[in-house]
């Protein structure tokens, strides 16, 4: 009985190890030395031929001049084509960002899968694409994969401080969602050490979420009340998340009037379905409290 060769399987959609590997920019070939060698060859041949006769010398001068001009033109065209390709890559990233902002996650995921499946042209574009990939994976509740991407970036790329902070916040959120509470706690302590200056509202939100998750509603409410001004200033409509978690904390403490008020504010700022998706631990609030509905269009 002959054994059939294994059929190669297409890579899984958003297969993280594959995308991390395939998206590495290609190592540039050492074109300089090839070009220098070619140039030297031309010079040697033309010297040899022009030494033969004065007629050949004239022809070779014309030829070498044309080769020189041709080289300059080819380099110009090559540079232009490379710049255009890099620009197109940047534009696709802008499109991905827009799709994510508009919550068109499926299209964003497909585009990222496509982009990261082949070597990217610019390393900074790859980093940006991977940051977006981590967000998309989080949206699909693939938190372990999101953590893998975030750790890859944190370990292998030198990021500017604000990007690094954002990425670390994202990683802690993924850890909390995966119930890696010890790791999350350690990562939050690390973030807190560098947060004295920043007063990060994102970190405050994570603190509140961690306390809700671990059954410490008193602490969650304390943080919420203390950090409300920073949250208002920094997170825009994601302030709804903080109100939603505060509503859950009040509910856990049996402070129903305050829970109702916080729940109303949360649903005033964010669609209920989004809040439930982000914080499934608080989904039961909808059975008890009334949301604020957006007016009919």
């Amino acid at each position: 009985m002959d054994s059939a060769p294994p059929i190669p399987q297409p890579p899984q959609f958003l297969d993280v190890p594959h995308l991390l590997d395939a998206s590495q920019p290609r190592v540039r070939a050492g074109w300089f030395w090839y070009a220098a060698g070619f140039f030297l060859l031309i010079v040697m041949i033309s010297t040899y031929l022009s030494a033969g006769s004065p007629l050949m010398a004239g022809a070779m001068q014309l030829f070498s001049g044309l080769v020189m001009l041709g080289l300059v033109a080819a380099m110009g065209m090559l540079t232009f084509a490379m710049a255009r390709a890099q620009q197109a890559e940047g534009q696709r990233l802008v499109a991905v960002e827009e799709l994510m902002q508009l919550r068109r996650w499926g299209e964003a995921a497909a585009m990222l899968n496509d982009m990261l499946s082949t070597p990217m042209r610019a390393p900074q574009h790859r980093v940006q694409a991977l940051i977006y990939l981590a967000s998309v994976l989080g949206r699909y509740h693939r938190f372990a994969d999101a953590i893998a991407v975030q750790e890859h970036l944190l370990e292998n790329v030198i990021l500017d401080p604000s990007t690094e902070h954002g990425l670390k916040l994202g990683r802690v959120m993924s850890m909390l969602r995966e119930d890696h509470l010890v790791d999350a706690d350690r990562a939050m302590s690390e973030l807190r050490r560098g947060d004295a200056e920043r007063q990060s509202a994102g970190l405050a939100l994570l603190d509140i979420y961690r306390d809700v998750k671990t059954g410490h509603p008193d602490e969650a409410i304390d943080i919420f009340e203390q950090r409300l001004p920073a949250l208002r200033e920094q997170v825009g409509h994601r302030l709804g998340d903080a109100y939603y978690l505060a509503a859950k904390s009040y509910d856990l403490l049996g402070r129903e009037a305050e829970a109702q008020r916080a729940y109303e504010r949360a649903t005033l700022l964010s669609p209920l379905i989004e809040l439930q998706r982000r914080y499934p631990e608080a989904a039961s609030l909808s059975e008890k409290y009334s949301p604020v509905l957006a007016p009919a269009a």
Partner: protein
Amino acid sequence: MIPAEAAISRVRRDLTLSTVLKGLIIGIGIATFLMRGAMGWSHLLVLAMLGVAWIVLSYRSAMGSRLAVDSQSLIAAGRYEAAEEQIEQVLGTFSLFRTSKLIGIHQLAVLRHAQKRWGDAAVLCRALLGRRLGPVKGVSKQCRLMLADAMLELDDPRAAHEALNGLYQQRLTLAEAINLVAVQADFHARAENWAELAAGIETKVQLAELMPSQQSARTQALLALAAKKTGRHDWATWLTRRAELLADVQELSTRRPILWELWRVEPGASPPSTSSSAERRGDVSSENL
């Protein structure tokens, strides 16, 4: 701090110089090629030297463009001094190509806009829009938005309108569309075009949700006022409550006094005193809407 006028005249001078230098390199190159018979093999040496000079200057220009682009993240992070230094470096270094100088001026305009130095931002945006932008023509849309915003802050709605006019035929990115909604809301509110401001309110609110807190609160408050003026009270109540949660009512209304109408207890009454907490603001709103 780089004075706007000085930066503009310096860039103008550098652009002229770079055009002359480029012309000179190309001219010498062509002349050398044509005179290759008389020059013998030395023409190759001259051409090679010109090539090297071109590559070195191109590299310096590319580095300048890179620095200018990097200053964007510094501005976004609120590190204005570092951004200023970087932009100064870009504007002070010679560049063979226009791109890095034009991006440098654009970033300076972005910086001044972020610093709320409206006059300087407007001067820089105007200078940029008055030039042929070539490969960086994409910045013209952001420039128009900043110019319109600066002109509204300087209380010149007519100039703001002129700046916005150039945008309507262009395809905008989402970020530009978001900024356009914010500036348009401000413009229509000043002109009291309530019906126009309230038109397509649902889409405008969706875009306002993507703005930073202050801008979002102001835009939604202006939309609430438009909804109130056009008899759409459900939208007015909903949007006012959202604005209250996102920003301080006192601060919002001090910057845009027209917004006091949303929180006025009764016609003709004085503005409410500064509320100390979100709770208090919520109560004021609920009583009056």
